[in-house]
């Protein structure tokens, strides 16, 4: 006879908001009349995400999460601690912004970037007539909400099983919405297939790792694992398990050599979805990575440290170098995200068992600023359009600054931030993680990272060169007038990029206070 575990609902409020909203979304889908669905779904999704954000902030405000306010609930399955809540808030916030991007209806003459009816085969007559239809596959909103919920669960999971469930909950909806592009459906569907197959493959690895760890320690609870690690570290089963778990997580975080899906999926998926993945998935994945490595295997750091060290270098180099020759902006940003994954790992390395290292805080901050910046960059991408959807080929951006100075300026801001130029948030983030790494004696890694970011700077600059220093094409793309949602997104992200670059103090403090994990 098992008695139900006691749940601290206050601590779970953010999650409840999201999953609640998702369920409501499903009901709306089932019962609301078609024309009312879209606004209703958007409303529900926003309520859910914003609610999650607010509740997370309230949670952080009301209790001292860095101290005794931190707890494990749901019978130890969920951790409620500074880092967890910070990441949940980040994900919820970025998720809300992504939802806004989803909801944009005035940019595309076809009224949405999502397919009217996914069931209709691409290219069929029905599909063509639906292309400009007002209909939208509004399921994307509940799906996205589920994904966000899954992500927030992912970063709070204190238990490998929960982590696995969360992984699936966040992945499955993503697989689907990747395939829901209104234009270029073939690419979109291909992206979905690739993402799905590889994702499933990766989660199988994760699962096998889980099993091995379970076998080695007799438990999937991170705290228990770390205990047995301290006593009997170096057990082959355990190590193998850890390896496979890392593989599964690195896949989600699109770290080389598990990055291969990233460019294809980023390019094929509808741009708002790409933005969503680039921003939120990364946050979630790294949240999980840190929880696993710090909480589960923190006492055994010298096992995984060299590995992460190497992976970080590979990821930075692969991302930076392959980005050089990309001609498609979405693909280029995909490689940039791979490089950034490497930079984030540099921050992850800034960790020592004593716990008072800046690595965690730095990574938290970096995740936030990177998410905002990349979201903004993709948001700009949605505005530059030609007859066939977004004009993502580099050559189409030539001389953009003369046609749309403001848009070009905003894009330049994001690119400079991604390149890590001072007075942008990107620099603050880079500085934080590199400081953490060097503080931990990993200065060679930091130097490699800096050189890599110099290489990466080249392809960011190339876009600036095109926008400003080249003469515009005769039949260049048009710059759509964004509706309210996209405008909000751009305003928020651009403002954040500047503010976090010039006066990042308060947010850094926040990350600093939030930087604790409970086992």
């Amino acid at each position, binding site marked *: 006879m098992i008695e139900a575990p006691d749940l601290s609902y206050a601590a779970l409020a953010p999650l409840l908001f999201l999953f609640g909203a998702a369920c409501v979304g499903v009901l709306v889908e089932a019962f609301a009349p078609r024309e009312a669905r879209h606004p209703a779904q958007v409303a529900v999704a926003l309520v859910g995400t914003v609610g999650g954000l607010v509740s997370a902030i309230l949670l952080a405000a009301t209790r001292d999460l860095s101290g005794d306010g931190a707890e494990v609930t749901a019978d130890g399955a969920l951790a409620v601690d500074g880092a967890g809540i910070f990441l949940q808030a980040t994900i919820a916030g970025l998720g809300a912004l992504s939802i806004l991007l989803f909801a944009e209806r005035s940019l595309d003459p076809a009224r949405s970037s999502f397919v009217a009816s996914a069931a209709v085969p691409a290219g069929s007559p029905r599909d063509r007539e639906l292309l400009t239809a007002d209909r939208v596959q509004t399921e994307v909103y509940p799906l996205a909400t589920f994904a966000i919920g899954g992500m927030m669960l992912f970063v709070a999971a204190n238990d490998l099983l929960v982590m696995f469930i969360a992984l699936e909950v966040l992945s499955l909806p993503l*697989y689907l919405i990747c395939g829901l592009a209104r234009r270029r459906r073939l690419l979109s569907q291909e992206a979905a297939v690739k993402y799905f197959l590889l994702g499933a493959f990766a989660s199988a690895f994760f699962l096998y790792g889980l099993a091995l760890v379970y076998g080695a320690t007799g438990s999937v609870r991170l705290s228990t694992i770390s205990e047995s690690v301290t006593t009997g570290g170096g057990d082959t089963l355990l190590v193998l398990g850890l390896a496979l778990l890392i593989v599964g997580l690195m896949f989600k975080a699109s770290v080389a050599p598990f990055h291969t899906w990233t460019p294809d999926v980023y390019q094929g998926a509808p741009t708002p979805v790409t933005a969503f993945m680039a921003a939120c998935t990364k946050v979630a994945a790294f949240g999980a990575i840190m929880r696993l490595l710090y909480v589960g295997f923190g006492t055994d750091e010298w096992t995984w440290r060299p590995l992460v060290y190497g992976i970080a270098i590979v990821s930075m180099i692969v991302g930076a170098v392959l980005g050089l020759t990309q001609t498609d902006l979405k693909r280029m940003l995909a490689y940039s995200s791979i490089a950034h994954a490497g930079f984030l790992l540099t921050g992850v390395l800034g960790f020592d068992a004593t716990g008072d290292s800046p690595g965690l805080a730095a990574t938290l901050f970096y995740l936030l600023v990177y998410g905002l910046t990349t979201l903004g960059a993709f948001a700009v991408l949605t505005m530059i359009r030609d007859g066939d959807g977004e004009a993502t080929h580099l050559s189409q951006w030539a001389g953009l600054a003369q046609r749309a100075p403001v848009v070009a300026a905003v894009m330049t801001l994001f690119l400079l931030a991604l390149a890590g130029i001072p007075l942008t948030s990107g620099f603050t983030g880079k500085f934080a993680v590199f400081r953490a790494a060097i503080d931990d004696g990993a200065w060679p890694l930091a130097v490699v990272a800096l050189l890599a970011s110099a290489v990466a700077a080249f392809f960011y600059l190339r876009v600036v060169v095109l926008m400003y220093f080249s003469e515009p094409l005769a039949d260049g793309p048009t710059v759509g007038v964004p509706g309210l949602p996209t405008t909000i997104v751009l305003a928020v992200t651009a403002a954040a990029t500047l503010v976090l670059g010039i006066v990042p103090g308060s947010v850094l403090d926040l990350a600093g206070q939030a930087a604790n994990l409970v086992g």
Partner: protein
Amino acid sequence: MTIAYYLVLAAILFTIGAVGVLVRRNAIVVFMCVELMLNAVNLTLITFARSTGTVDGQIIALFVMVVAAAEVVIGLAIIMSIYRTRRSASVDDANLLKY
């Protein structure tokens, strides 16, 4: 030392699945190979549950089955949609996105 046999078997099954993913072209089959991997894991879990004398393993296995079922639904939906467009379920045909 019977435990080892189960584990080895599971490992073999897992490897077969993984190799299958690499060598088969038909999306459905590839996906089935993934399923095979999952079930290999299940076997491992059950074995460990037995060896460690805890029920967690069995419970996890149940969870995995549910997840796998959900995955099947999603996966088949995606594969179906692309199949209806391309009239082919070969994963090698889907390579518009590259480099």
